[in-house]
Every structure is written in structure tokens, then in C-alpha cells.
């Protein structure tokens, strides 16, 4: 018999790392992108099937963190996990992701999360050295993705979904 479960998941990251582009082709949304700039989030859903289990991820795609705007952390309330997105070609965005992780952990405690390093199609221009990447990988499930080709995105969602179902 199939089961249906739902989880609230937040997408967090600095402005311009490609959060919205990253998920645009993998999720469905009935709302326009305008909401992100008006109320600071946009809602999407992602259905994952694990054998007879169906997991619905309700994604809160929070607007990016930068010097002009802060992520509205009240939106984290009730999230079962989160997905941090950074841009491999800008090291500073990884640091922003780490800071957002700290803030999220304070609100949510130790919940499943994954780190996504986007723009894998521009690997030659990455600002991350191997040692740093190894260090990240030792602390996080890290996925290299490309919003342009779609590579790695599904895997990142599935890994997060799997961790959510294990809890």
C-alpha cells in the first residue's frame, strides 16, 4: 500500500546563486516569481517517489541573502530540512550559505540538509580549492549541480528526501 508524506523544506542561499533557476525545471509552481520580491518567498512543490512511498516536498524558495536584504527567518518555522545553495564561482556565497546554516540550525536544530554547489558547468572558473571542497564534503552532503544542464539537481533533492524519510 502506498503512503503519502509531506515535508516543508526551505531553499536558502545568497542572491544570484541560481536557486530559482536551479529548481525551476524540477518543480511545479502556480505562483509567479514576483512573490519572492514582494513577500520574500515563493512556494513550489516537488513530488518524489521511493518505491511505494510518495514524498511531497513543499519548497519555500526564500529570497536571497545579500547586503540589501535579509532572509526572513520566520519562514523557517516548521521546516523539516533545508537546501543550501552556493555558487562555485563565488567563494563568498559559500560563506553566506554557512552563515545561513548557522541561523537555520538555531531555529530548527539538527535537521537534514544538503549543500548544493551550483554552476558546475563553469567548473574551470570555480573559486574553491580542493582542500576546501574536501573540508565541506567532510561536514555536509555536497552536490555539484548545474542549473543550465540540470545535472545533479534531482540527486540533491532525492538525497534530502531520503534523509527526511529516515527521521
Amino acid at each position, binding site marked *: 500500500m502506498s*503512503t*503519502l*508524506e*509531506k*515535508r*516543508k523544506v526551505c531553499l536558502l542561499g545568497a542572491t544570484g546563486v541560481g536557486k530559482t533557476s536551479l529548481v525551476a525545471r524540477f518543480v*511545479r*509552481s*502556480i*505562483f509567479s516569481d514576483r*512573490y519572492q520580491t514582494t*513577500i*520574500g*518567498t515563493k*512556494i*513550489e*512543490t516537488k513530488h518524489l517517489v521511493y518505491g511505494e512511498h510518495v514524498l*511531497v516536498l*513543499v519548497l*519555500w524558495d526564500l529570497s536571497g541573502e545579500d547586503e540589501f536584504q535579509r532572509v*526572513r527567518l*520566520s*519562514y523557517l*518555522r*516548521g*521546516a*523539516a530540512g533545508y537546501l543550501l545553495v552556493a555558487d562555485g564561482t563565488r567563494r563568498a556565497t559559500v560563506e553566506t550559505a554557512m552563515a545561513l546554516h548557522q541561523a537555520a540550525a538555531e531555529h530548527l536544530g539538527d535537521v537534514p540538509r544538503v549543500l548544493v554547489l551550483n554552476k558546475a558547468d563553469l567548473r574551470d572558473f570555480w573559486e574553491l580549492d580542493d582542500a576546501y571542497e574536501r573540508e565541506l564534503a567532510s561536514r555536509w552532503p555536497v552536490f555539484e549541480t548545474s542549473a543550465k544542464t540540470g545535472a545533479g539537481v534531482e540527486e540533491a533533492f532525492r538525497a534530502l528526501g531520503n534523509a*527526511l524519510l529516515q*527521521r
Partner: protein
Amino acid sequence: MSARLRARARRRDHDYTLDDLRPFLVQPEQERLKSLEHKLETPDALAEAIGEVLPRAAVMSQKRGEELSSAMQPLMLSSIHEVVRKNPELFADAIFPSIGPAIRRAARAALEAFVQRVDDMVQRTMTVESLRWRIEAARTGRPFIEVVMLHNLAYRVEHVFLVHRESGLVLQHVAAESVAPEDPDQVSAMLAALDDFTRDAFREEKEAGLSRFCVGGLTGVVEHGPRAMLVAIVRGIASKDVEASLAETLELIHRQYAAPLERFQGEVAAFEPTRDALVGCIREERIQKPASRRRGQLVLGAIAVLVMIAVGITWSLWHDQHRRFAAYVEALGEEPGLTITRTGHDGGRRFVEGLGDPLALDPAALLAAHGLDASDVELRFKPVYSLDPPITERRAFQVLKPPPGVSLSLVNGTLLAAGVAERAWIDRARLLATSLPGVMALDDTRLFEAEAITSAEAAAAALEGIQISFPLGSTRPPHAERARLDAAARAVQEILGAAPRGGLSARIEIVGHADATGTPERNQRLSEERASMVAAELDERGVATSQLSARGVGHADLAARKVTFAVRLSPASEGS
């Protein structure tokens, strides 16, 4: 003896142990305890005790709220279910007195709803108002049905969401009929986000929340509970009933699902049974229209009249077609060579069964004359030889193929053939005619040979070209004329032989002449004698002279010593 032992001995003399005193000290309490113990440990006694207070407890619990009734509900439902399953007759007997009125009420309600729907339909399609609404729909770009609803409904609850307060996840969602479903998870999460946003943006207290929002003709009514909220999306102006039903339902859900709500991590299956409660919140209120029922009845009446007219027209068409079909069948029956064995309906189509000679008229050819179409009637005819005289006659024509000038007709089984034909055709007709079905005999007495006419005419021409010469004053033809006499005899025989076969009668005259010498009287006598002499010569040559006539004309005609021949051939009937 030690001091201790002594003391003990003393106490025995003057004092009692506690056990000795207990019966005196706590006797009444012990009895009460025993009684209570008996009541608690003996099922019958316990039941009696609870029975005494149960009604009062129920009344008091009812006063405090609906907790008891909520708790009892599943138990009662399963009991009723069990009773119905085990003894349906008992249940049927119990509800029998109320089922009749209930059915009548339901039927009345259904009829009223039907009248209302007819009325709506009329309003939507036939009234000036509906035209106005269509224009409004076209102008505003809204679907027509939405415009109708706006004008007809005070309000309608279109969606109800049960939302987990903390995560914004949808626990259950129901929508009204014919409302297009959106992704409830996204809508609910966005509502939660808006709730958070408004609270954050305007720094409202944590406990408060978004309770009502309006967009165009839609209103969102939000009822907050400690762990979940109910959101109703209402088209039109929601009455207080909506809020009341939401509050009541949310309280019920919090009571019945306290544990699943508290430990909710995303397993929505636990909330599937809340669907019924949410469906109870889907409601609508119509704008009252006092005259509508009467109008609905009028429309029903009009529909009934239209139906009767339609039935009348259909019956008339059917009857007319039936009449035409009967006339067609009668006409077929009168047609030679066709025999009708059965008529009727088969699968909604009329049919005619029978036997038909291939030479008879094609039954389909008569359809158009009776206003029928080939698709109206199925014709099932088997081929036979018919002995109907007209068909026999047609068959004689088909088989014998008479040449022009020959007529065929059948009278009492005898085929009458009349006219002139070649000998070969006549021989063939004599051979074949009586072998045709329906032909008993051939009457060919008026059938003549073309070749006989030709040869009679040729012989007549030859005879008229022959002149027998005589010496001066003589009535005997000279020897030299014998060959001509022979030829004349053959010609006469040929004419007399062929003429009857050609349907002709022949008049042959032997005409005697004299020259101008002598008196007219002598010449007359001489010419007559010469003609008689030739007749005698022909008689000698075997010619039946009874059919010949001889006369003399003196010298008036040729003024020569000769005998000539005149032949007149005429149709036998004319000559006889």
C-alpha cells in the same frame, strides 16, 4: 528472670495488643472499606453502582462540552453498524415509522431542486437578464457560469484547507463541485507565508494571525487553532455561518486528533478521516427569488405541452408512413409476377417478403411512387417462375424475340402469333413456344412466310410478262407457243401455291385478244375462245383452273392475236 522478661509478663496481665483493640477502634470503617471493596471487585455490584450515577455523569459532561459525545460517537457507530449487520430486520422495523416521511421529504426536496434547476436554466438561457450577464462575461473576461453564480449566490464555500499551523503543510483539502483544483500544498504554504509576512511586517502579536482577506469576489476566512488552522475560500459575501462552522469543525478536529497533531512530522494519512468534517463546511446560500417556483412550474407545463406536440407530430408522421406503406404493399400485390408472403417491422424498419419473377416489375421501382425511400423498407424477394399471363407473354417475347411486324399475345394459355416473318423464325417459334411455362398451344394461323409473298409476287410478275400468240382467225395456239404455255402453267401453280402461305389471295385472269380484222362480234367471240383454249391448255398441265377466270376483250385492248394474264394479289382477309 531478666528485667525484660518480667516487663513482658506484666503487660500480659494488664494490657491488650493493637490487634485486640482494632476491632473496637475501626470496626465501622472496616465494614465500609469491605463494602467498597465488594463494590469495586464484584462486577455486578460495580455495574449497579455506576448505573446509579451514569445518567447524572452524562448530563454533567454534556453541560461541560461535547467531549463525552465525541468519545462515544465511534462506539455508538460501531454498535449500530453491528446491529444492522446482524439483524437488519430489527433495524428496518425500528426505522420503518420514520422512513416513509423521510423518503417523501427527500422526494419533495429533489423535485424542488429540479424545479429550481429548470428555473436556473431558463434564466440562464432565455431571459434578458442572461443576455446581460453574457455581455458582462464577455466584457470582464470571466466565464459565464462565474457571472451567473455571482448574481445567483449570496455565497459559496469553494475550498476548505486544514493546515498544520507550524509547517503550513496541508493536512486535508476539499473543494466544491465544479471548482477547478489548484495545488493545495502550494496554496496552503503561501497562505502560511502571508500569515507570517503580515505578522512580521506589522509586528503583530505572536498569537494573532491573518483571519480574513478579500480578493475581488473571493474572501478567505481563517480560523486559527493551537496546532492547526482551517481556511475557507468563499465566493461572495460569507455569512457568520461560515465562521461558526469553521470554528466548530476546528474544535472537533483538535479534540479528535490531538495526538496526531501534536506529533505531526508530515504523515498526512492520519488526517484522511477529517474529510467528512471539512465537507460539512462546504456550503452555499442562494439569493431568494419568490416567483421562481411558479415560473419553474410554468416552464415545466410549457415543456409538457411541447412534448405532447412533439408526440403528436411523431404519431402523425408514423401514421402517414404506415398508410403509405400499406398502399405500397397493396400495389405490389396487384403487380403480375409478384406474390407477397409477409410484411412487418424488424429492428425498427419495415420489411416486405415474397416471391418475384425476374421479369416482373422491380418492387423497389414502386417505392418512390408511394412516397417511400429504399432506406424505409427492406425488400426480401425470392426468384420464381410466374404463370401470370402478362409475365408468360413477356417471357415469350424474351425467348422468341419476334421480328418487327409479328405480334404475340396469350389467350387462355394459347400463344397467338400474327404477322409476317421469315420461315426460319416461324419454324423456331413452333418448336419453342409450347415449351415455355404457361404456354399450352401456339396459334399460328395468322402467321405468314415472308419468302412465300416474295415468290408469289415474282411468279405473278413472270406470268404477266407471258403472251401466247395465235395465228390469224385461229383459236388454237401453234406448237411454237407450247413452251410459253408450260411457263405460264408453272407460274400459275407457283402463285396458287405460295399466296396462301404468304397470307395472300390471288385472282388470275386469262385475257383473250383479237386483231382488228373482222367484225367486233367475231373478234369478241374469237378472243373469248382463245382465252378458254389457254385455260384448257393450263388445265391439261395440271393447273387447278377453278381458281382462274377467262375472258375475251375483242380487239379493243391490244388489237393483237394473243392471250395475256392479269394477276391480283391481295391480303387473304381482303380477298376472301
